[in-house]
C-alpha cells in the first residue's frame, strides 16, 4: 500500500480515548452492573485501552471486560473461497442482566455489529447493549445500526481504507490512517 494520510494523530488519539472513557464513566458510573466487550480481532485493543483509562479514572480494577469472536455469526460465511477462521472468545462472566458496551475500532457497514449482537445474545440476555467505536465511517451503512459513543466521524470514499494503528501491534505511536485506493497495489 502507498503512503497514508493521518486522520488522527497520536495527541488527538489520546484525547479521543480520554473523552470516550469519560463519557462511559459518566453514563455507567462505577460499572457495577456494566461490562466492556471488545469485538475480535480489532475491537479488543480499543476495549482494553478504554478499560485501562476507566480504571485510572475510577481507581480499582476497572470494569468487567471480555473479548467476543463473531466469526460463526457472520453473514458472509460461504461467500469467500476460504473458510473464515475463528479468534478467541474470552468471556468469563455471563452477560445476563448486564449493561453491555460493545466496542469496535471502526463502524463501517454495520454487519460486524449485527453479528456481534447475535453472538453476544448466545451468552445470555443483557439488560441493554450500547456500541462504542473509535471511527464511524458514516454514509456506508448497509444495516440500520448506529453507535452510542463515537471517537470521530469520518467521511471517506467507499474504496478508501481506514486503519487504526495501535502502538503495541503496528509499532510507532497510536494513530488512525486513511489509505488511498490508487496506491494500494503499489
Amino acid at each position: 500500500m502507498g503512503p497514508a494520510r493521518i486522520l488522527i494523530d497520536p495527541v488527538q488519539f489520546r484525547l479521543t480515548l480520554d473523552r470516550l472513557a469519560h463519557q462511559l464513566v459518566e453514563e455507567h458510573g462505577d460499572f457495577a452492573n456494566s461490562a466492556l466487550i471488545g469485538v475480535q480481532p480489532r475491537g479488543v485493543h480499543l476495549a482494553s485501552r478504554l478499560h485501562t483509562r476507566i480504571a485510572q479514572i475510577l481507581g480499582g480494577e476497572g470494569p468487567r471486560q471480555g473479548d467476543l469472536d463473531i466469526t460463526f455469526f457472520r453473514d458472509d460465511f460461504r461467500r469467500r473461497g476460504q473458510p473464515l477462521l475463528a479468534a478467541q472468545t474470552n468471556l468469563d462472566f455471563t452477560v445476563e442482566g448486564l449493561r453491555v458496551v460493545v466496542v469496535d475500532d471502526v463502524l463501517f457497514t454495520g454487519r460486524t455489529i449485527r453479528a456481534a449482537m447475535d453472538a453476544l445474545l448466545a451468552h445470555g440476555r443483557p439488560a441493554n447493549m450500547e456500541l462504542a467505536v473509535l471511527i464511524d465511517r458514516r454514509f456506508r451503512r448497509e444495516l440500520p445500526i448506529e453507535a452510542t459513543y463515537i471517537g470521530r466521524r469520518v467521511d471517506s470514499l467507499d474504496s478508501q481504507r481506514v486503519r487504526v494503528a495501535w502502538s503495541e501491534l503496528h509499532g510507532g505511536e497510536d494513530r488512525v490512517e486513511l489509505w488511498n485506493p490508487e496506491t494500494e497495489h503499489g
Partner: protein
Amino acid sequence: MAEFNHRHLLGIRGLSRSDVETIFATAREFKDVINRPIRKVPSLRDLTVANLFFENSTRTRLSFELAEKRLSADVVNFSAALSSVNKGETLADTVRNILAMKVDMVVMRHPHAGAAHYLSQKIDVPIINAGDGTHEHPTQALLDSFTLTEELGSLQGKKVCIFGDIRHSRVALSNVRCLQLLGAEVMVCGPLPLIPKHFSSLGVKVEYDMDEALMWCDVANVLRIQLERQEAEVPFFPSLEEYHAQYGLTVERLNRLGVSPLVLHPGPMNRGVEISSELADRDDAIILDQVENGVAVRMAVLYLLAGRLGGSED
C-alpha cells in the same frame, strides 16, 4: 492467516500438520460454544447434511448429528438396514438419489475400505469419511489427538501406544497418521494375530508384551476388542479371559509397573476385557472428554469444509 484447502475429509492421509492445527484451533472455539447457555451458532443454517450409515454406529452418528445441529444445519439420516441397498442399488446410485433432494454435504460410514474415496470421484459434494471398513476414521483420530493436546500441550516427542485389536480397528491407521503428523512417536501393541504385518512399514514400533509397551509410553490408547469380528475359523485369541490376562489394562498392572500413562478409549468399552472398570471409572480418566471433544472436532471439520462451498446462489 492459516488456510484449509480441502474439499473432502477422506482420511488423515492428505492432511498437513497445519491443517490439523487449524482444525484444532477451530474445535477449541466450538468447544466454548457448546458450553454456553445457547449451544448453537448459525454458520450452516442454509445447508443440509446427510448422514449415510451403511454400517451400524450409534455414537459416531449421534456425535455427527449433534455437531451438525449445533451448527444449525438441517440433517437427514440414512441407515442401510432400512434402505434399498438391500434391494440391490449401487452405492453411487443411492447417494445420487439422496443428493437429488438438494443435500449439500455427506457424512458416510461404510463397511468397505475406500468407499468414501470412490464416492468422492462420483459425486460433487464434500464427503466426510466417518469410517470406511478397517481403513480410516479421521474424525476419531482427530478427536483423540485433540484430547491429548488439551492434556499434554504439544504432542511433539510424546510416546503413544495403541493397544488391542489393531487388525479390525478403523481407528488405528488414522490415529497412527495423525499422531505422527503432530510429531508423536507411535507404538502398537497386541496379540500377534491382531496386528497386521504392514504396520511396521508405517514407521511405528510393534510390541507384543503389554508390560514393555506400558513402560515405554506416555499415552495408552486402548482399542475395543471387536467381539463381532472374531468369528474366524481359527480364533485370533483363545478366550476373552486369556485376552484380559495378557492385554487387559488394569489398575493393578499400572501399579505393579509403577507407571501412569494417560488412558484413552474410543468406546464402546468392553469392561473386564481390554480395560478394567476400576480404571475406566477413575476420576482422572479422560474417556468422556473424548466424547465431548468429538462433537467440537466434528463441528470444526464440517465448518471448515462448508466454508469452501463458496458463493451460495444469491
